[in-house]
């Protein structure tokens, strides 16, 4: 299976961003964003769906940390 082309990548990112926007608006309630979730899963390779889900979790976690007193040190980005 060859990697997604640039166009396919951008379609995937767009679907992901819409799904995430829906989650933002619905307090992370995934049940309200089913349609966008389906769209996201169909446009992105399965590995990427998993990766982006983990990334979302990480970003939310980071937000929570930063909202509190404790500021975590910068972490090296890994793909």
């Amino acid at each position, binding site marked *: 299976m060859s*990697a997604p082309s640039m166009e396919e990548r951008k379609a995937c990112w767009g679907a992901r961003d819409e799904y995430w926007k829906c989650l933002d608006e619905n307090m992370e309630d995934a049940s309200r964003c089913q349609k966008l979730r389906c769209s996201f899963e169909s446009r992105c390779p399965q590995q990427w769906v998993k990766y982006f889900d983990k990334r979302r979790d990480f970003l939310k976690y980071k937000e929570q940390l930063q909202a509190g007193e404790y500021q975590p040190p910068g972490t090296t980005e890994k793909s």
Partner: protein
Amino acid sequence: MTPDTPRRPGKLLPPVSWVRNQLLPVLIPSLRPFSQGAPSSGGSGTRLQLRTRLLITCLFGGAALGTWLHLRSEKERQQKLQRIEDLKKVAIGQGDFHLVDHTGQPRSKADFLGQWVLLYFGFTHCPDICPEELEKMSQVVRLLDQEPQLPRVQPVFITVDPERDDVAAVAKYVREFHPRLMGLTGSPEHVREAYRVYYSAGPRDEDEDYIVDHTVIIYLLSPDGLFLDYYNRSKSEAQIVQNIRGHMETYQTLFS
């Protein structure tokens, strides 16, 4: 000579008048005017003497400073020569790689000598970071191309996932970023070899597993093939361009 003023009996400290009339004039000749028997006829003579002293002091001071500066620059020159010799050894001894570019042509380190190179390690199945960094790198190249007095930079992408990224996959990938972007791939052993050549020269990453993790770094290589600088995710296109321009302007080849 002024006559000694008689000491007051019982006093251990020299009287003020003695300090003023005997001690100070010796230390500061220009204070003599009021005492009897001053060595010269008046103020101008002592001022000339003072100026002469000052001039001599300045000359000695200047000579000392000059010597010190000369010795320091000599030392710096020696250190610089030593550094160049060390770098030459690293440039030659830094190992080689044997990869294939996205047109199927074999490539090794020698192919890039004489060119400035921007190098990025990534893989085509990378979800977001590699495309973003390659887009950034391509934009840097486009911006530098707009300055005709600067040498052209060769952007290079080396896959860290040779099992999936064969020549065709790499060709399809690099084509979408910049026409000059060269993709390199090869056998897993050869890719590991190439990664070691540059990885050891770059900043350390905690994780050595190059398939799953890789340093998100864009490397700048000089025309001598030496690693000169690196740019991480936080560096913008403008910052990188400025940095590269600076390196190009101050660059002097080791091998001339």
